[in-house]
């Protein structure tokens, strides 16, 4: 089986936080302790939706030192393929589920003199755990959090109450904007900036920081892409000697798993590189959506990330 090690858990708390976001708490089925983790880690939650196994990554937002339970916050996506809707509508208190061991693709750089967090919307969740980790060791941090309205400002009140001096919240409906240029300009040397939120926000922060002369290794970001639906296509798997169909609503990775082909993964969101697959032959166009391959690799037609990327055309032969 691919992916990280698995843990059997039960749902011990479900808290709707606002119109879009619900928090879930998991404890081990066997009553034991969960592994500690590092701030920024995620877990992949398995959802048994009839015949379909949905696997979605969610940032762990509880205290990394707390081994009694993990919590995640799930933002409902009505346009998505159904994972977050399943969590919101079908998961009940006491349900048993399977989650993966923590995997961290968005780790704190512990050399940083100061950690500057920029969050947008549900992108607040990894910072919740990172803030708890830094508080434990008297770390120096500051959070700038943009959200649509006060009602949708998930954890905003909690953060402001506990960390009034470190937290600044910006509401779109009140026309509040992060003044990024000034914010970056005023940071002490040795500051690292971390951004998690919508694609546009990540690019804005990365580009602004880079243009301002920030070293590349001091800029950190995380965006998990949910696989997007698209036109069905056919793919030949050369190693497994199978021809399989990828449906409109499923990813290439999911289609391989459905056909019993074991393919590696860690994030299922185009970020970790685990599922990188070589292309043996193709006639058509790739729809690359990952963060892993660079532009030249995307253009080369030699690699594809099956967790989020698709294909339109006649022939696609993969080394799986």
């Amino acid at each position, binding site marked *: 089986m691919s992916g990280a090690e698995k843990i059997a858990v039960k749902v011990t708390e479900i808290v709707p936080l606002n119109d879009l976001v619900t928090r879930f708490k998991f404890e081990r089925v066997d009553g034991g302790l969960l*592994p500690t983790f*590092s701030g920024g*880690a995620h877990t992949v939650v398995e959802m048994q939706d009839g015949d379909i196994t949905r696997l979605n990554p969610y940032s762990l937002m509880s205290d990394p030192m707390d081994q009694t339970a993990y919590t995640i916050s799930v933002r409902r996506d009505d346009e998505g393929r159904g994972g977050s809707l399943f969590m919101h509508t079908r998961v009940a208190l006491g349900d048993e589920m399977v989650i993966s*061991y923590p*995997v*961290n693709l968005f780790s704190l750089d512990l050399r940083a003199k100061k950690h500057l967090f920029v969050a947008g919307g549900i992108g607040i969740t990894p910072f919740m755990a990172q803030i708890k980790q830094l508080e434990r060791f008297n770390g120096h941090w500051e959070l700038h959090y943009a959200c649509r309205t006060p009602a949708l400002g998930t954890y905003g009140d909690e953060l402001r109450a506990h960390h009034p001096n470190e937290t600044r919240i910006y509401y779109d409906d009140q026309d509040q904007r992060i003044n990024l240029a000034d914010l970056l300009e005023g940071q002490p040397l040795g500051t690292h900036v971390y951004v998690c939120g919508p694609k546009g926000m990540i690019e804005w922060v990365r580009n602004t920081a880079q243009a301002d002369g920030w070293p*590349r*290794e001091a800029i950190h970001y995380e965006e998990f892409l949910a696989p997007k639906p698209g036109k069905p296509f056919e793919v030949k798997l050369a190693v497994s000697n199978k021809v399989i169909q990828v449906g409109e609503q499923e990813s290439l990775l999911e289609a391989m798993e459905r056909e019993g082909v074991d393919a590696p993964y*860690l994030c299922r969101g185009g970020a970790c*590189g685990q599922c990188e697959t070589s292309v043996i032959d193709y006639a058509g166009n790739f729809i690359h959506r990952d963060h892993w391959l660079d532009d030249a690799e995307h253009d080369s037609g030699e690699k594809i990330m099956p967790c989020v990327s698709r294909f339109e055309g006649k022939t696609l032969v993969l080394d799986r």
Partner: protein
Amino acid sequence: MTLQFNDETFRDDYSFFNSERAIKRFPFPFHEDSYMYSVNMEQHRGGPVDSVYEKRFDVDEHYVSEMRDRAMVLADDPLRCQSLPHMTLAGWDLLELIMVSKSEDYPDLFELHRDGDKWRWINRPLGIDHSFTFLDETTLPYGPMEYITRQAQGDYAVLDQRDDNLWMDAGMITTQADWSLDFDIGMNFFEWHAPVPLAHEKGIFVRALKFLLNIQQGAPARRLNWTMTVNPLLDTSPENYHKWGIQKTTLTPENLGAKQHLRVELQTFFRLPRSNALVFPIRCYLCSFQDLMSVPKWGRRLHRVIRDLPDELATYKGFIDNRPMMLDYLAAFDDGLLTSPGIWPDLDTEPALQK
């Protein structure tokens, strides 16, 4: 099982020895009759009973003597143990990993009692019974990494992961095969592997790094590596080359079987939970040629591997000058029969030597 600890030295009079049991469980590194680099990684999830793979951290008859030797190396050269400031949390991770593993795997030798942050650690072989506060450095006599690795066989490279690379930012390195923590500290994966021949061209390091970056909590990995050492020396550091390098010239056809040692590293890789760092324990096992020759399969195979090894590798591993003499010795133990695949001694199935 009660473990008997050898009273032995790895210097001066070299009283080091392997018991019959230690020879049978020696991690012979060649799974076939030839050798070339590969990313020979596998999961580290136990192995045959009483093999060096069985436990997360192997404790054997050399434990007490190895820890005594480590203390001597550190007394002479404190720079063998270093930790950059941002690696302290990884040190606590490592302390927890070793204490939990050893107390669970060897309950007759080690005990760990935890009441929140108040911990008590009992190490019977070394006579330690110490209470301390987890994550509070002031309650330990050394930093957390140094404290626990003064009580754990093998070297420990503690690697920070950032910027899609691994950085040698902390370590306890006293039993190394001719490399130096003080030289490598702060280097990344490609920098510290720069001196290795052939493997760069084969793309080995790019693949190995990718594998290591993806090692996850709860899923450790392992591999074997090897070299040669004249006399059972644990400390073959560049810092002390003037002491041990010259010993390579003391081999004679008469003393080679006793003096020439195959040196095998069991390398394991664990993701550390709180820091997201990676720890790379490198456990060194030594076995003299004459002890290896007591296993017919190993006798046959070692001759073929050493005979066919590319010159670059024999040079890099430091025995090119002695190779002819080694081959004269080993040839007597190669009767030309086929060997069985795999590294295990296969005493039940491998025929006795035919001469």
